[in-house]
């Protein structure tokens, strides 16, 4: 282009600028708002751009207490993975735990304190000062008037120092009304273990080393106690021990995720699993497999439960019962566990007692591959068992409706969603003069309160935790913030400590700390000087740094079973093994089986979009509720997948689309718990149904827990149809080479 002249040059420029102009215009139209790559001009010291920082902390999504490592970049949390050194999850993590980021960055988080203008009115944002002053004055006045007992704190199942803080705070306030409520809390399991073994904590079920898992409804791979830990154990049980491959048998009326993975799935009649266990015990004794000194006691206790007698009630053939009993004995060490729907009927404790007795009879107690009793976790002392049973909650309801509760503080729990309509809890709640909610999200309960104090998520908070059930040795984990709070929110500990100073009096003396971090450090300093000081650390600071680095602290010991058998005596004589149901069989022909959803847990996970988009493991359904029906039942009633079904119990009705589920008893229908929120943010709101709503308020007398698997229902077609959104097309292999080597499939 050497001989370009002026005219050509101008032409080129002209053409070029028209092009550029159009380009610029297009760019302007399609331009997106400029975001700076790194928001701070001077970056904070704790990160370098482009390099990921990992923080170890504790998962707060369920009560298993897994350790997590959070990957952060430029001050933002990017991914949650399991903490490899944590004994519970050993680097692994479930879907709920990983979706914790959705809670942290949820668009529907409450971003500042809210005050209700007038009863029934809307919320107005207020400052923290105003919120805490209002609440502090109210509590202070009550305390001065000696009405401290009119304050009730209803929390989720917090443990460790936060629990201690709550307890101290309430005690200093002069109230003994500090309750914890979690829908999925296994009250019956605790109670049964207390009765049979006289222990307050849960034992460790050593699935990892057992040969045979006889699970009565316990969905240990999905929702039961500590699913990640048990999944690890399951993997080991199956393929981790060379040729010794453990066998899994699952007895439950509706196939759970664990049932799908078991070698045998046996649908006994709902509620009769205890009977079945008795029959198995009967076989063990009559076939002379048990030789203990108390054999006569046992023989008389289980004598009337011969397989032939039980077979009709449980809907399992005599030979089948005998086979299971023999397998159970033959494959020792074996393990019988009970949970979820089996442990939530009116005979829950009786069922678990009968099932636990199998462990005793087979000699599985306190040995590898059996039931191992945990030592009390000695690092952080939890105050005491505060988990409210259903009856306790009903006590709270009565107190609320009779005006004995002046101020109710709800912390991170959602009783309005998790209690049946028949409990009339919501109505009682509205009668409380002043209600405060500490929550990150506008859930159903928070929506009813007068003052909302938005919480940090667990990823922005300080704290600690003790895994329960423990892992056989002393351990505790530390929670630390992995990101700075993204909104104007505070952690529960900070709020309580600030309130203590607001109220004044003895409170600041008992709780002199101003923030949770200091409180936590002080607590751990005590632990350090008491138990750890003589170890390899120069100072507490060094220890503390190490604890924060690893995210977990414990005795570096493996599980050494304590050989002592704790069973005092046969406890099977006076149990009511027969189940009771709400509604008689003629009017309400189906047993309703609400089950804890593997994706949403008790409904807590429903506002997390990753979980809404995670296909349900058994049905592949997303974004909705469904009613599981046996194909034969559906055929009889002329129901097709997606037909809107009306489910009627004595206490109410709900409507949801039907799903033809092959693995459910014909006399049972199942609905997952978790959806059906009327609040709780855009991802959860007005989606599906909540089966808890239509349950009758019947309890298991032994544990006072709600018998949520004991409601009978009738179903009818509504004539409407809703397409279920699911990812699976045809769920049969059609003889294709999918699970076998080529040539082997038929």
């Amino acid at each position, binding site marked *: 282009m050497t001989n370009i002249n002026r005219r050509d040059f101008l032409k080129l420029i002209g053409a070029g600028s028209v092009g550029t102009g159009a380009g610029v215009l297009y760019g302007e139209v399609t331009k997106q708002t400029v975001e700076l790559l790194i928001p701070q001009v001077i970056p904070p010291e704790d990160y370098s751009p482009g390099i990921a920082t990992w923080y170890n902390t504790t998962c707060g999504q369920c009560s298993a207490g897994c350790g997590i490592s959070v990957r952060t970049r430029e001050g933002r949390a990017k991914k949650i993975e399991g903490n490899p050194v944590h004994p519970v999850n050993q680097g692994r993590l479930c879907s709920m735990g990983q979706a914790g980021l959705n809670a942290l960055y949820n668009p529907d988080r409450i971003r500042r304190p809210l005050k209700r203008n007038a009863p029934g009115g809307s919320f107005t944002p207020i400052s923290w000062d105003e919120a805490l002053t209002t609440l502090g004055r109210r509590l202070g006045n009550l305390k001065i008037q000696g009405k401290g007992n009119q304050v009730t704190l209803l929390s989720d199942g917090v443990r460790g120092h936060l629990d201690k803080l709550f307890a101290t705070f309430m005690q200093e306030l002069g109230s003994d009304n500090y309750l914890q409520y979690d829908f999925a809390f296994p009250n019956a399991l605790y109670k049964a273990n207390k009765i049979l073994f006289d222990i307050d904590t849960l034992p460790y079920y050593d699935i990892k080393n057992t040969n045979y898992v006889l699970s009565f409804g316990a969905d240990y791979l999905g929702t039961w106690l500590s699913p990640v830990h048990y999944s690890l154990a399951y993997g080991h049980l199956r393929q981790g021990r060379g040729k010794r491959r453990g066998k899994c048998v699952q007895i439950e009326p509706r196939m759970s995720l664990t049932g799908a993975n078991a070698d045998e799935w046996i649908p006994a009649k709902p509620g009769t699993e205890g009977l079945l266990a008795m029959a198995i015990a009967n076989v063990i004794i009559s076939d002379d497999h048990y030789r203990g000194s108390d054999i006569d006691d046992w023989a008389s206790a289980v004598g009337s439960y011969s397989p032939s007698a039980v077979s009709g009630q449980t809907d399992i053939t005599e030979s089948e019962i005998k086979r299971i009993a023999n397998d159970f004995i033959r494959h020792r060490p074996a393990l019988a566990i009970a949970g979820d729907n089996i442990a939530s009927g009116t005979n829950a404790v009786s069922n678990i007692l009968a099932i636990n007795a199998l462990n005793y009879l087979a000699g599985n107690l306190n040995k590898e591959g059996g039931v191992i009793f945990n030592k009390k976790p000695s690092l952080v002392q939890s105050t005491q068992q505060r988990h409210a049973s259903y009856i306790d909650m009903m006590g709270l309801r009565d107190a609320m409706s009779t005006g004995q509760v002046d101020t109710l503080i709800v912390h991170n729990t959602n009783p309005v969603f998790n209690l049946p309509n028949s409990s009339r809890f919501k109505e009682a709640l509205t009668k409380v003069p002043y209600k405060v909610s500490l929550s990150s999200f506008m859930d159903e309960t928070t929506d009813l309160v007068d003052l909302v104090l938005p919480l940090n998520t667990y990823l922005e908070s300080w704290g600690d935790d003790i895994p329960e059930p423990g892992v056989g040795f002393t351990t505790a984990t530390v929670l630390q913030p992995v990101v700075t709070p993204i909104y104007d929110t505070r952690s529960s500990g900070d709020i309580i400590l600030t309130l203590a100073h607001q109220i004044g009096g003895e409170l600041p003396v008992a709780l002199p700390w101003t923030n949770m971090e200091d409180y936590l450090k002080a607590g751990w300093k005590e632990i350090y000087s008491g138990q750890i000081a003589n170890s390899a650390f120069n100072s507490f600071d060094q220890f503390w740094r190490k604890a924060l680095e690893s995210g977990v602290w414990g005795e570096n010991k493996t599980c050494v079973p304590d050989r002592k058998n704790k069973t005092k005596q046969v406890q099977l004589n006076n149990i009511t093994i027969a189940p009771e149901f709400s509604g008689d069989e003629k009017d309400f022909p189906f047993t309703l089986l609400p089950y804890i959803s593997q994706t949403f847990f008790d409904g807590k996970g429903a506002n997390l979009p990753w979980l809404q988009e995670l296909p349900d493991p058994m049905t592949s359904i997303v974004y909705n509720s469904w009613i599981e029906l046996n194909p034969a039942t559906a055929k009889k009633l002329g129901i097709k997948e997606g037909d809107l079904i009306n489910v009627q119990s004595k206490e109410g009705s709900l409507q949801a689309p039907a799903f033809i589920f092959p693995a459910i008893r014909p006399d049972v229908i199942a609905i997952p718990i978790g959806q059906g929120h009327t609040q709780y943010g855009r991802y959860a709101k007005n989606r599906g149904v909540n089966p808890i709503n239509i349950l009758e308020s019947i309890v298991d007398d032994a544990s006072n827990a709600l018998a949520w698997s004991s409601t009978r229902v009738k179903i009818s077609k509504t004539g409407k149809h809703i397409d279920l959104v699911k990812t*699976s*097309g*045809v769920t*049969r292999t059609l003889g*294709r080479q*999918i699970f076998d080597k080529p040539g082997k499939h038929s």
Partner: protein
Amino acid sequence: MTDTNYQEPGYADVNRDILQTLLVTGPKYWITFGISASVALICFFGPWAYQLYVGVGAAGMNRSAMWGTYLSNFIFWIGLSHSGTLLSAVLHITHSGWRKAIYRSAEAMTLFSLMTAACFVMVHVGRLWFVHWTAPIPNPMELWPNFRSPLMFDVMAVTTYLTASSIFIYMGSVPDYAAVRDASTGLRRRLYTIFSFGWRGTAKEWHTLSWAYMFFAVFVIPLAVSVHSIVSWDFALSIVPGLHQTIFAPYFVCGAIYSGTAGIVSVMFLLRKYMQLERYIREIHLDNLGKLLIVLSLIWTYINIVEVFTGWYSGTSFEYEFLKFRLFGFYAPLYWEMILFCAVVPLFMLHKKIRTSWKWMFIISILINIGMFTERFIIVATSLPRKFLPDAFGFYFPSFVEIMISIGSFAIFTTLFLIFIKWTPCVSIYEVKETLKPLRRDA
């Protein structure tokens, strides 16, 4: 036969009759043109613009059915493009005199269906703004298209075919452009002077034309056969049950000629009726095309039977499930409709009365093309949702946008054709004259 009172036109009549289609434009034409152009705009370009804005998600395709009506439309239009040029070339080589009245419009059909088909490639892709990457354009990244890709073969084949067809039709039109030039004045005359390359009608010019025309006729035949074979490889080179078939190339070629021939019958009927060309497009043409259609229909039916048989005979679950879905599934009515229209209805043409009746032949030809359109849809819509993993089985139903665009494509074709008939004589003037008896002095 209506030929009893047929009076053969004289040379001057030919010029006058045919040129009037160009020179005289009535309100009917403008109304038709207006309607088809606006339908094209509203049904094709409107939804397409919307789709470009939101993404291909505006169409009904989904995970298992990643291809949909856009591709089936593409094949349909490519199919329709056949027999135009192909037929014309074959008949030219075999010196079939009856081709002369029809070949121009047939070739025009080729051209415009190819253009419509090309539109569908544009509509189909996810990022239209990068579609030029399929062409081997030198670039600083030294990136080249993937020559192993059947889609790449496609781009090559279609562009080559488009080029060859354009030249073929243009070359054949040059003497006619000269005729238009001679009959017109003003701007039109100047334009046609350019179009006709200064054609004077010397013996040398005629000689060169006929030689070149013959060359192209020979050249176009293998090209036309290869184009639809290549289009079929888009499907057949995959391993998807229902698409991975060795018979697909002949199947597509046969189907293409079949639908193309039927298309010619339809267009002939319309031209004859609305352009007053009764004296040039005659029953003899219809009769011959009818016979051709019967043969093609039989071949087509045979291939369909083979397809079902091999599927069943394979005994594999893949083929079996897909066949079950095609023959008895949701789209079974469409499948059997296709069999009815393309395999059963054409058998009526065995009767000469029907074969030479304009009305019946028009109806049959339209039915055949409806059937062929369905065939293309079924190939895509019943194979892809039934692939290998049953859990991933899905379902495909076209969305509103897809249906609109499919309708709009017909309007595009019509619009282009309407422009064409005002630009080029739709019956070859000079070749029709060749078929007439020598000049009668007394006329």
